[in-house]
Structures are given as C-alpha cells and as structure tokens.
C-alpha cells in the first residue's frame, strides 16, 4: 500500500539571488506537489544548488518567498524547517558511529530512548544496513555512507527531502544501483523531494518531473518523457538525450501541417502541427538519432552520405553527412553495415520530429 508521507507541497514564489555581479537566480516560481520527486537538472552555475540551499535555509534569498505547505518559512533558520538533507559528500559526522549519525535528528527532538532505537533501526533496515549500526563511518564504503546519509535525513520524517548530487562521488555501476534504490524508497513511501543533479540519466530514472535550469532560470519543467519528446527549445533538446538539430526555414502552416525547407535540398517537408508552434522564418528541426531511418532509394527522403559507422552492441550508430555538410547521427538496431562513403537516402519519423525556434549559438 502506498502512503504519502508528506502531505505538504512546497513552493518558490519569485525567489531571486545575486552573488556579487552574478545573478544566480532570476525571480523564479516553482511548485513541487505533495509526494512528488522533482529533479533540478542543469550544468554547474545554472542556479540549481542555490535554489536547494534557499529551500534548506542555508542561504537567504534576495527576494521572494519559500513556502512549505502554506507556511511561509523564508525567514526561518534551517533547524525550524523540518527538512531532511542529503549532501554530495554525505556530511556524516565522523566521530559518531552509524547508529548515532541516524539518531542525531531524533535526539535533537528529544525522542525517548526506546522509540529512538526502534525508529533508527527501522530507518537502517529501510536502506538495508540493519547489521551495521555499530560501525564507524570510515569503515563503510561510499555506497553505504550514502545510504546512512539517506537514513539520517529520512528518519526525522521531514516535510521535504533535499538531495544535492548525492551520487556524484560514487562509481558508475554503484550509482545505477543506488538510483534504483532511491526510486524504490520513493515509490514505496512517496515524500516531497527536490533532487539536484547534472546527470541527465539520474534525472530521467528517478524523477516524477524534471526542471531544466540554465543561467538562474527554469527553461522547462515536465515529466521525463514530455521533456524528451517535446523539448521547449534547443537547449533542453541538447541537454537531455542525443539530438540532431538541423537549421531549416519554416514556410508556414497549412491546415494541420507545418511546412519547411531544408538547406541544400529542394522540396518542401511537412510535420504535423501538434507541438510545433514556430513562426515562419529560420528554425531548427529536431530529430533524435533513433527516429532517423534509411529510406528506400525511390521513396521520399533526402540524399546523404555515410561518413562513419560505430558498432555499439545492440545498436549501430551511423554518422551521416548532408548536402551542405551538416552532420547528423542515426542510431538503429540490427542495421545492416554500410560502407563509408556510400550514398543513401534518409527520412525522419514525422510524428517524433519537432520544430524548435532557433536561438543564437552559445
């Protein structure tokens, strides 16, 4: 049975922050629903950690308010917010054993000894460290330390759980394992969570919704699938997943179809209008590598040349050169090998391709 532990959502209202001459956060609104796992995804310097620290109370915003439920906690110190926080370096107390680390928040709250023991043991069982209560922190592996940090943050039944790149210090294999572990814990007992990362895979695997951040702004906030399939702009498209972006000229919309032309090619192409709201003029065609296919030589498509093929096990990636030297990648299962330099015709899946407003390159 699923029980939502936190009945509170949280909300940022016009929150802004400046460090010297750097505008770390532009006035920003963000709502996290009760029991939702929301990931802030962005490169370093995009403001995601600043936002997290404002939620935790370690930083004061220059303007705006932060609400837990309908309680304005902007002016409250961290200790009065009932927030669980997991740090990138875990920040476990080195002079206490595993049990005492997890018990810290309960001792602060004056929980009685028997209740405390029971709750700490339940928390350790939850992260599958039942046997290790008496261990010193330095006797644990990185993954185990990470789970102690998780147990310590969760045992206090926080209204909000904050995680600041908690998997950054783990090796790749362990990271995948802990991702699924965190996801399992969240699905079993959903609690309102804000998770910060720059790793797109982490964001896709764990989140209910993802907010893509850039330069102190939220570029787009949506479910992982919606972000991948309907990115709001080229930045989101390139940040999440592999993408081919081809410069095109949008000619206009006729009925349900938007027409555009591709540089270097005659002819007019069409996409269903859904999801493409781009005015006539220069734009970008987004076609993910897995939506590009080789067309029969006499079927509709555009002429291109194979430049490189890369064998990836279950997939084969092919680098293709278009008429004007544009390069795109195609990825397909069971693709017959093609000689470098051979001429082919390619097409894209019109249902999955998108037109995006072109923006100045960074």
């Amino acid at each position: 049975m699923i029980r939502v532990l936190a009945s509170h959502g949280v909300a940022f209202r016009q929150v802004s922050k400046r460090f010297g001459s750097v505008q770390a956060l532009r006035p920003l609104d963000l709502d996290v629903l009760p029991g939702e796992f929301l990931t802030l995804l962005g490169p370093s310097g995009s403001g995601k950690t600043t936002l997290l620290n404002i939620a935790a109370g370690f930083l004061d915003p220059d303007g705006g308010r932060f609400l837990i439920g309908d309680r304005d906690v902007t002016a409250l110190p961290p200790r009065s917010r009932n927030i669980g926080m997991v740090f990138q370096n875990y920040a476990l107390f080195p002079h206490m054993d595993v049990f005492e680390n997890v018990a810290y928040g309960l001792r602060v709250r004056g929980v009685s000894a028997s209740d405390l023991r029971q709750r700490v043991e339940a928390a350790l069982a939850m992260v599958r460290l039942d046997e290790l209560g008496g261990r010193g922190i330095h006797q644990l592996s990185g993954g185990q330390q990470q789970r102690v940090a998780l147990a310590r943050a969760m045992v206090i039944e926080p209204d909000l759980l904050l995680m600041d790149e908690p998997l950054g210090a783990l090796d790749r294999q362990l990271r995948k394992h802990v991702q699924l572990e965190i996801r399992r814990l969240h699905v079993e007992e959903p609690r309102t969570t804000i998770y910060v990362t720059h790793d797109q895979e982490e964001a896709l695997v764990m989140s209910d919704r993802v907010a893509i951040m850039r330069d102190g702004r939220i570029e787009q906030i949506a479910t992982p699938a919606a972000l991948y399939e309907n990115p709001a702009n080229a930045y989101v498209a390139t940040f999440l997943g592999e993408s081919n972006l081809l410069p095109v000229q949008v000619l206009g919309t006729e009925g349900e179809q938007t027409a555009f032309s591709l540089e270097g090619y005659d002819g007019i192409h069409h996409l269903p209008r859904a999801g493409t709201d781009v005015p006539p003029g220069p734009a970008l065609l987004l076609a993910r590598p897995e939506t590009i296919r080789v067309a029969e030589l006499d079927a509709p498509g555009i002429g291109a040349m194979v430049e490189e093929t890369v064998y990836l096990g279950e997939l084969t990636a092919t680098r293709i050169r278009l008429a004007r030297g544009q390069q795109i990648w195609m990825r397909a299962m069971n693709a017959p090998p093609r000689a470098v330099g051979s001429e082919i015709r390619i097409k894209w899946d019109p249902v999955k391709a998108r037109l995006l407003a072109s923006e100045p390159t960074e």
Partner: protein
Amino acid sequence: MTGQTQSRAVVAQVAGAVVLAFLVMPIFAVVPASLNDASFIKIPPETYSTRWYTQFFDDATWVSALLNSIKVALLATGFSVVLGTSAALGIERLPGTLRSLAVGLVLAPLIVPVIMISISLYYVTRSFGLYGTTIGLALSHSLLCLPFVVLNVGVSLKRLDLNLVRAAEGLGAGPWRVFRTITLPAIFPGLAGGGAFAFVTSFDEVVISIFIAGYGAKTLPVKLWEQIRVEFTPVAAVGSTVILGLTVIVFILARWSAAASNRPASGRDT
C-alpha cells in the same frame, strides 16, 4: 651526480644534527646537574644523589612557587582556551580584510616586545588591584597564550567541513548543540595543541611574572631567577628539571589526546 647530491645531503644532515645538539644539549644538561651529589654544578657528576630533590620538595618557598606556577598556568590555559576558541570561531566568520585585522590583533602579543607588555600590565594590574594576585598573573599570561589557541583552533576550524554544521542544523540542532556535538569534537585536536602551548607558555614565563607577580603570586621561574642571581645551586637545576619534565608531559598528553580524538576522522580521508 647522484652520489654527489647524496653525500651533500649527508653533510647537511650531520651539520643539522650538530647544530641541534649544540642548542638542545644545554637544556638537558640540567638533568644530570640536578642529580649531582656535590653542592656545586659539575657535568657529568662524579656521584649521583637525589638529595637536592629532597631539599627542593622540603623547602616551602620552592614548593609554593611550583604550586603557584601550576595554578597560574592552569588558569591562564582556561582563560585563553575559552577566549581563544571564541575568537577563532568569530574570526572564521569575518570577511577578508576584517579577518586579517583581527588575526593581527590577536597575534600582536607575540610581536610586541614582552618588556613593553610587562610595563603596561604593571600599571594596569596596579590600578585594578590585580597586582601580585594569581588571577592577575593568569590574566596577564593569557595575553601571551591566546595567539597559540587562536592559531591552532583556527587551523582545525578551516578543516571542518561546513556541511557537517549544515547537516546538524538541518536536523534541528540549535547553535549551542551544533557547537557541542559537531564543532567541538572536530576542533579538539587544535584545542589540545593550543592548550598545551598555552600551559607551557604560562608555566615558564618570566618577564611579565617578574613585573607583576609581587610576593603573592611568585612562580617557579621567578623563584629560579632570584635564586640564580645569588648562586647557581643544584636546587636550581632541580627546579629547571621540574619545568622541563612538566613541559614534556603536557605535550605528550596533548598529542595523545588529539590523536585519540582524531582517529575516526583521519581514517575517513583515505
């Protein structure tokens, strides 16, 4: 090529050892001198005896000087540890320029000639009725002890992971609880080291003590100084050996307790 650099290194090490021996040996020479049976200083002694130790510990003026020294040093250590730790915590939070100014102020007693400090303290203690009192002397010594505590605790504080403090705050701990359960264990090695320096600094301090100890708070170094002005007897060598011994013991204790408290933290560095 390598042979040449090697032999140069050996020469440098031997030279270093000789200089060190030249500087350190006289300090340890007081130990055999104090064990000489004869009533004059001769190294090495012809016959050994502990009779000067008996005389030292039977003489009320020596014993009270020793006890005074310990009392003053403990008080001065207490004052400077509390004040120095508070200062180090405050300094850590100051912005750049203000911080260097504050550090400079705290370190000033190490740079200003002690004789000037002594004269100033002479006037100050007289006008506050602290002249010749144990408290007055301990407070005065604290001035010299403070820099060691601030520096040592400051180094420990720099190594303290700010996220540990944040984690404790996030779990609901107030400032005093955070200090007691997180900061204090983390800075304990610095505190022990600074405290040991503070104790030793006060314990063998002469100049300030001569000025303001008066008769009421005469310490062992002052008594030694007075004794040696008259005659360097083996009893004076006993007094010096006692200072030396206590100094060594205090440092060993500090190192030991710092290492004991630091063990789990250092294991995590790997």
